[in-house]
């Protein structure tokens, strides 16, 4: 009976998730069906921006899930359920990728269009940049990520509860996380090349994968802070989440803001000083037609402002203020994804394109957050049963 109930529950969840994902794909599909080719491609770009923005939070959650098993620490225990829930939404992105591969690839990527046959450079790159290879790689990425998140969530659940294996199972999680991080780094580098860098297939940057990962971790961290700060306003959770936990998260946020800026600027500096004909067009596109405003905004609001604000110790210890900074950083993450993707197809900053991108992020966001909350609420918001939980709570007290 219990098993039947459980199965029924799971079927209901699955059904709901499928429904949401199909709704999501349909709403994009409907708007993208028909219309001029350029308008169609525009909408797919909006889709890609929304996809990358929300994917960052989910995949970054997987990375943090592995990192906290490897490093330990109270912050990791407090954020674990959020990491588990965000990384459990990865199948949603697999389904959305199917939609993209089926309908969107020629609309998005120059290398997938018939004109590519006349392009010498794209011909030479066609062994890597072709639709079947793109699809197969996509399958491999998601098999790796979903398997990792599935195993870690499952093993993580058995560190606690009735059938507790205790620390033994936690060790298994750590053993899995080591190679998991290596796989994550490799697959995410290739995914960044496939999905975003190949929008401009003549251009390349060996720093791109690292930049993508740094941004991804920043997104996931900011989202986790938002969830934890909201949780800390609940009476029954507030007593477990101390100021020092938020202080730790604030410090990590500062570190990732700096890492992102460091990598972004390194890429720019190398290309700018090299000044090579095959490299500079990427930045030339982004420094004219209104995009230069976005570039300056990123320097100020994605780096300088959060950097200076997060230096304050008092602010990092105030969950509400940290929440505001995290929300602001999430908005800047949208701006950076916009900056990476949009100028590849749209030569000048236009309000309509911007609104369409924001709209896409909002639609996908509503669906994704709903799915996230659905998964997140199925378990306790903090891993109360974890053997190290009491210690982690005590850490937050000072």
């Amino acid at each position: 009976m219990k098993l039947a109930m459980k199965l029924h529950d799971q079927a209901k969840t699955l059904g709901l998730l499928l429904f949401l994902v199909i709704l999501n794909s349909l709403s994009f599909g409907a708007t993208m069906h028909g219309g001029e080719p350029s308008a169609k491609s525009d909408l797919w770009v909006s889709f890609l921006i929304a996809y990358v923005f929300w994917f960052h939070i989910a995949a970054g959650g997987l990375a943090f899930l592995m990192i906290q098993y490897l490093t330990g620490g109270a912050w990791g225990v407090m954020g674990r359920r959020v990491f588990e829930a965000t990384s459990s939404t990865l199948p949603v992105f697999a389904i959305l990728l199917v939609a993209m591969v089926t309908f969107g690839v020629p609309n998005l990527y120059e290398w997938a269009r018939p004109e590519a046959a006349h392009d010498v450079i794209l011909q030479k790159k066609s062994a890597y940049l072709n639709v079947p290879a793109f699809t197969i790689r996509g399958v491999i990425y998601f098999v790796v990520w979903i398997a990792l998140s599935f195993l870690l969530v499952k093993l993580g659940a058995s560190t606690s509860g009735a059938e507790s294996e205790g620390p033994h199972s936690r060790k298994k999680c750590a053993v899995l996380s080591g190679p998991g991080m290596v796989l994550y780094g490799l697959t995410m580098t290739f995914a960044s090349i496939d999905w975003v860098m190949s929008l401009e297939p003549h251009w390349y940057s060996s720093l791109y994968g690292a930049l993508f990962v740094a941004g991804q971790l920043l997104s996931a961290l900011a989202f986790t802070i938002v969830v934890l700060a909201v949780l800390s306003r609940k009476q029954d959770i507030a007593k477990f989440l101390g100021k020092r936990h938020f202080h730790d998260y604030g410090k990590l946020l500062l570190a990732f803001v700096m890492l992102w800026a460091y990598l972004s600027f390194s890429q720019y500096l190398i290309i700018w000083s090299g000044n090579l004909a095959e490299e500079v067009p990427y930045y030339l596109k982004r420094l004219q037609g209104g995009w230069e405003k976005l570039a300056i905004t990123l320097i100020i609001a994605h780096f300088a402002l959060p950097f200076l604000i997060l230096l304050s110790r008092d602010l990092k210890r105030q969950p509400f203020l940290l929440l505001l900074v995290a929300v602001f950083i999430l908005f800047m993450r949208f701006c950076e994804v916009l900056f990476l993707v949009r100028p590849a197809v749209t030569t000048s900053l236009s309000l309509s394109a911007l609104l369409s991108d924001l709209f896409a992020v909002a639609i996908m966001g509503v669906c994704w957050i709903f799915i996230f909350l659905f998964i997140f609420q199925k378990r306790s918001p903090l891993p109360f049963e974890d053997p190290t939980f009491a210690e982690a709570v005590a850490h937050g007290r000072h």
Partner: protein
Amino acid sequence: MTNTEIKSLFGIMAEFKDAASLAEATKRAYAMGYRQMDAYTPYPVEDVIHALGLRRNEIPFIVFLGGCLGAIVGFSMCYYFQVIDYPLVAGGKPLNSWPMYIPITFELTVLFAALSAVFGMLALNGFPSPYHPVFNCPHFERASQDRFFLCIEATDPLFDLEKTKQFLLSLKPVEVCEVAR
């Protein structure tokens, strides 16, 4: 007890065998109202730091100022060399090619911030200090080996030679000694 006696006294020092009894003693002294006191331990003991009621210090602010100074020095140094002192066009780029200054600006920011942290810490600790009264206490050198010391200083408004001594003795230390100035 005369005034000169108190003036010639730095404080009263109690010696403990372990960190836990020092932390407990410090808590009790703080609860008694003593504020002008310091603890000496072979390694940092977090409980003692909290028990002493230490306020935040000026180090972060000093480091921030040092970092700002480093950034200004780094950038203006590059500007002076490239634009004023020895203008040389390289790679067809403008003389004031600021992106090229950023790595040096960054490095000098870090360098100045780190150095101001070290020297700021030394200055706030009163270093260099060739003489310090605490060493007048016998076996004080064990503070860097295996003993834990709590010193209530004579400058504390509640300080009273007899009462403070009695109080420290009530904490069951290994030894209590009067520290001459």
